């Protein structure tokens, strides 16, 4: 073992030159690349986090929209059920009133017809009974008013008996 200060100095010089060269041509670029990668990873991580957050928000929105749609569909069905029920009731009501009206009309018509027929029959019976009576009593009742009175009187008697 021997110590020489010259070797000492040479070692220092060699090491310093190596350090400067490595720093400039190898480590500097390497460190910057590593730093870039670190930034890249950081950026991608934050991007991923953002995307995830957005996705969560989006899913939440979708869920809400779905819920709303479901609610609306339910309301629509409910509404239509109600309206259809009302309509049916209306139709039934309408039909009922129509039927009642038709019945009333028919009853009135029948009454009218009956009255007419009674009126007509009364006239005819009057004429026929006058003829019969004139044949029977042999004289003609000339005056119409007297004739009418007679007929009515008889008819009342007939009607009263019957």
């Amino acid at each position, binding site marked *: *073992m*021997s*110590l*020489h*200060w*010259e*070797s*000492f*100095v*040479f*070692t*220092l010089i*060699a*090491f310093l*030159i*190596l*350090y400067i*060269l*490595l*720093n400039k*041509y*190898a*480590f500097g*670029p*390497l*460190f910057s*690349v*590593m730093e*870039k*990668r670190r930034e*890249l990873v950081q950026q991608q991580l934050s991007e991923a986090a953002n995307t995830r957050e957005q996705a969560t928000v989006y899913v939440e929105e979708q869920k809400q929209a779905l819920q709303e749609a479901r609610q609306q569909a339910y309301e629509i069905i409910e509404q239509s059920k109600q309206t259809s029920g009302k309509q049916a009731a209306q139709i039934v009501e309408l039909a009922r009133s129509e039927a009642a009206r038709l019945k009333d009309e028919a009853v009135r018509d029948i009454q009218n017809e009956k009255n007419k027929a009674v009126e007509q029959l009364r006239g005819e019976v009057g004429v026929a009974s006058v003829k019969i009576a004139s044949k029977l009593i042999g004289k003609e009742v000339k005056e119409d008013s007297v004739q009418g009175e007679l007929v009515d009187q008889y008819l009342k008697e007939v009607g009263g008996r019957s």
Partner: protein
Amino acid sequence: MHEAPIIKLGGLNIDLSIVFMLIVSCVIVFIIARLATRNLSVENPGKMQNFLEWLVEFVRGLSNSTMDWKKGKPFISLAMTLIMFIFVSNMLGLPFGVVTDVHDAEKAQIFGQPLVSVTEKMEAIHKQHPNEEPEVEVAWWKSPTADASASMALAIMVFLLSHGLGMFKNTRAYFKHYVHPYPYFLPINLIETFSKPLTHGMRLFGNIFAGEVLITVILRLTSLGPVGGVFSVIGLIVWQAFSIFIGTIQAFVFTMLTLLYISQTYAAEDDH
């Protein structure tokens, strides 16, 4: 033992093997780093880039275990250079060595310069055993960290850096540390402070140097004939594997301690 090839140049004792091995280590480390960062990609890193990034993460973990990330960040490059340089240096001495035998002091020269260490050694041997032919082995290829000067240079660099940072950037806490917990602890704290770079550098040097010495010793076993050869091969396999482990651990420990020392001076809290 192996001698270092030292030449005198303008009054400087220049250890050629250290200079050469330092250059080799630096070139290898730089090539590895450049290969790894050749096609840098943010999204699709290659194998080499992944490896270097793993190393950066590892060093960052070491830094985070000793100090705040904000304070430790500027030293990541330093720690990366240290761990790569020391690891490569430690590994260099393992696969092979280049040793030349010198028998003649006249021939012990390179580029026209005499190898001072070799000639001195030869003279010393000649004085002790005047009748024998002197033989000196010169190691050209070895781990630079197996040289005390190189290891201590790194350790003292860390020492100066950490204490400089402590003095100028963290003055109050730094000086308070010397009289902690009581003023009469000052001598103990001083001893602790100055023993740190010594153990820091010597630990690295000792481990690697011992590894290479043992490799040399195991290789010498071959001179004992076939049995020695077999033991030599087995021993080499085991010891090489262990040396790889040691080299890795020492690179890790040196880097770890570097960050720790920096944190103790630079990042020490006031109320510590």
